[in-house]
């Protein structure tokens, strides 16, 4: 393990016996990990397994309690982001470190300007353009980064790392917000990095990608390294078992759906961004899958029904009753709820407790004469926590301290308590680990069984195919395809509608 068999050189990165504890939690326990030059290592694990802690150490945000890190055989002490940069490590976090108002080239050289207080526009621009050319991707150079797509911003981050002479690039769920085509493009870039002898640590929850891109897989569970193996020696089932530590037979729970008459009927739904009004309906006990590329208008569709965006025109009826929804409050009272894709910005209040977050949409039922019924709220919250298997020490704990999967379960709990008739899920399993995914799918099935009307928006095609009774595919604000027979549908069929 110490030396690469082929070259005799010491490995690019060697982490040895890394321990890290936070108050009350052992985040990492004797983890050792190595990456060779030009190797792509996929780092896997459920939420809370310690992946984030490990890469934060590489980025200089946290220091290990014990253990050492070597880069190309030399021991390094990464105690700041600057030290990480110096060691040749570039970390691309899920939340990008880009200033939205600045152009790509300005972002790339931010903090490293060389002009003695003046910005050397032409030099920097030219150097950035060269770097972009090397990666073979076209990114507009003079548009503020905030206006670029997620994929383009990610490329800017990668180029930024390359401009700092990074030898190892760590990517934390780079594909989470990308479309299938964009992911393919990202993989081309990664293969190019490999050719340039740059090592990559790739974190993702998507199995397909791991088999496509990685040379070796390392699995973390509860802060310990469960094992590493060449990707070729593993299959999907074995990988999932390593992650969750138990057998999972199926990715999607088995169910049969009883479809009833149409419950939610949408006619001529119009958003400022949509070229035409949208018509569709959701039946009793049905899961309607909505998919498409990013920017296709899926999220806007959900926000319109929920009253979160301004409705330009159209009508929504629930069980034959026309609804007049002007705010999310109206929608909630009418029996519609929306589980947003972005937990941090829209779903939860990170600085509030689990219980308070749980109670927020339910206070009309959990209060009397303006007073919150604290006890009743706590009991209800605890019972959902048990039912959804939320890992927490107590319900007064801050939501911000939970892992991504558990946060998503808190979102689920607060809306389940509402017992709404129409439930809209926007990317219900984004950033959620395999074990929790299964539980969320089981829950969606249960809601369908209860006769609710469910809309599930997702970019993950296997999920859309595995869960939906009917699929709407959107492209640039239009519904470009409806797939009735989901059992026979394929990913290619969906992509055809989505890319048009």
């Amino acid at each position, binding site marked *: 393990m110490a030396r690469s068999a082929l070259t005799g050189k010491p490995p690019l990165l060697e982490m040895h016996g890394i321990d890290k504890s936070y108050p009350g939690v052992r985040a990492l326990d004797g983890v050792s990990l190595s990456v060779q030059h030009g190797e792509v290592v996929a780092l896997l694990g459920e939420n809370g397994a310690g992946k984030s802690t490990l890469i934060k150490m590489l980025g200089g945000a946290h220091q290990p309690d014990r253990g050492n890190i070597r880069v190309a055989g030399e021991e390094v002490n990464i105690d700041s982001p600057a030290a990480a940069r110096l060691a040749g490590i570039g970390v691309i976090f899920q939340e990008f470190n880009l200033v939205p108002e600045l152009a790509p080239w300005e972002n790339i050289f931010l903090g490293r300007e060389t002009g003695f207080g003046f910005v050397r526009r032409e030099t920097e621009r030219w150097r950035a353009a060269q770097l972009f050319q090397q990666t073979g991707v076209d990114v507009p150079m003079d548009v503020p980064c905030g206006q670029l797509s997620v994929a383009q911003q990610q490329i800017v981050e990668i180029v930024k790392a390359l401009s700092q002479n990074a030898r190892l690039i760590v990517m934390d769920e780079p594909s989470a917000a990308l479309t299938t085509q964009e992911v393919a493009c990202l993989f081309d870039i990664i293969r190019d990095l490999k050719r340039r002898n740059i090592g990559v640590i790739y974190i993702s929850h998507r199995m397909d990608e791991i088999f496509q891109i990685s040379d070796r897989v390392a699995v973390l569970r509860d802060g310990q390294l469960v094992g590493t193996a060449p990707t070729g020696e593993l299959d999907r089932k074995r990988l999932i078992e390593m992650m969750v530590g138990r057998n999972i037979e199926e990715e999607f729970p088995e169910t049969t759906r009883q479809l009833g008459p149409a419950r939610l009927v949408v006619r001529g739904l119009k958003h400022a961004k949509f070229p035409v009004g949208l018509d569709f309906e959701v039946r009793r006990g049905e899961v309607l899958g909505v998919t498409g590329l990013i920017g296709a208008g899926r999220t806007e569709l959900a926000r319109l029904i*929920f009253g*979160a965006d301004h409705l330009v025109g159209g009508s929504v009826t629930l069980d034959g009753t026309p609804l007049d929804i002007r*705010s*999310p*409050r109206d*929608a*909630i*009272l009418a029996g519609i709820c*929306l589980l*947003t894709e972005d937990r941090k*910005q*829209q*779903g*939860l*209040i*990170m*600085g*509030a407790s689990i219980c*308070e977050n749980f*109670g*927020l*949409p339910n*206070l009309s039922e959990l*209060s009397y004469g*303006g*007073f*919150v019924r*604290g006890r009743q709220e706590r009991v209800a919250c605890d019972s959902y926590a048990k039912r959804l298997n939320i890992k927490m*020490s*107590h319900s*007064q*704990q801050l939501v911000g301290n939970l892992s991504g999967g558990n946060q998503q379960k808190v979102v689920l709990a*607060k809306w389940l308590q509402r017992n709404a008739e129409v439930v809209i899920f926007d990317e219900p399993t984004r950033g959620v680990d395999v074990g929790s995914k299964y539980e969320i799918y089981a829950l969606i099935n249960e809601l369908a069984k209860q006769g609710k009307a469910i809309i599930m928006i997702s970019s993950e095609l296997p999920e859309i195919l595995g869960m939906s009774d009917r699929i709407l595919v959107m492209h640039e604000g239009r519904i470009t395809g409806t797939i009735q027979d989901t059992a026979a549908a394929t990913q290619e069929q969906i992509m055809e509608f989505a890319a048009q």
Partner: protein
Amino acid sequence: MENRNASGSVVNQFLSDYGMLAVLLVLGALFATLTIKEQHPTGASAGRQVAQMIAQRQGENTQVLIVARDTREDRAFARAAAKELQALGIRVLAVVNGVPNDVRAAIEKITAGRQQIDAIVANDVTAKWSVYDRFPSVGSDKCVKPRPYIWPDFLKMSNLLGVANQTAIYAIIAIGMTMVIVSAGIDLSVGSLVALASVVSALCIRDWGGGADAGITMVVLGCAAGIAVCAAAGTFNGLMITVFGIPPFIVSLSMMMIASGLAFRLSDGRSISELPPSFLWLGGSQTLGVPNPVWLMLVLYSVAHIVMSRMVFGRYVYAIGGNKEAARLSGVPVKRMLMAVYTICGALAGLGGIVLSSQLAAGDPKFGLMYELEVIAAVVVGGASLMGGRGKVFGTLIGAFIIAVIKNGMNLTNVDPFNQRIVLGAVLLAAVLLDMLRRRR
């Protein structure tokens, strides 16, 4: 195990919410030790004490002169001494409430009547007068004064109540400010609203209520008008913030100038003092020995604490401050709530203005200058975050008292007023720093 975790977190929660209480107590202890001094009892209880001393020392058939100044406390002292002495069967020749000359006249009269003075009841001030030594038959050694004792100036009841009374106005306004800051906003207009409320209510009472002869109904209506105007100003702030999305800082900065200008305009820049005694009751009187503003403060804080910690209203305010978009998407009526918060803040600033006018017996457009900063400082020292979502009502009360205690303590220890400002600035910074460090750990 579960249980211990939970109770441990309750203790931690309490410490993080009210850790500033410890700071307040330490400050109190510091100023208590710095201001330890020999104290002389005053008032009725001191009078009774001296009477007892004379009775023990001299027995019956003693003739006594009582000497005190012409102040409220001294009169109470003299009255109590005379009453007690008579009850003990001792003859009081005369009671003097005045200056040394009055004493000389009294002694001359007594000696002219061939009466003998066996003892003089005096307090620590009148015992030092030299007038007694002019009469060979009297002499200052016949003075009996109350026994002194050791006690810090800071902890004297009168001082503590004084501190509470002065803090009450800031603290009342700070309730509204706490709600605003918890909702991730700011209100810079409260200082000007204090002036506006004082002017509007004084004007109403003077011009429509009959000035100094105004009846109680007109006084109440005048005060209500002052508060209503400020509440309306708060509603206007809320409207601008929610409907047009103007940042609270800008909206309330504008309102600060507008309200101040209005106050000067309405009063022509002059103080209005034609006010009836009933108007002065709220700020100037006591109930059960405690100043009325302090009672008002305590009641308002209790109500606000319940509203913010137990009621749906408070939950919504914290939720909006924690994450406005998430709160909206959870069905919180964000706009309505923010309007309510700014309205309450305005109304409480108005109430603060009424209390201040009542204390100072005037309506004046110059009242409330820089109050907004003092109030924001109290809220921040009390542990609220300017980023919103965090802060406790009683934390603010503690914050207001920390600032008041430091000011009072520095006055008692004769710190130069210029240095006082420097210290206060440093304290504000230190409080926030301490809070940050504690949270980071």
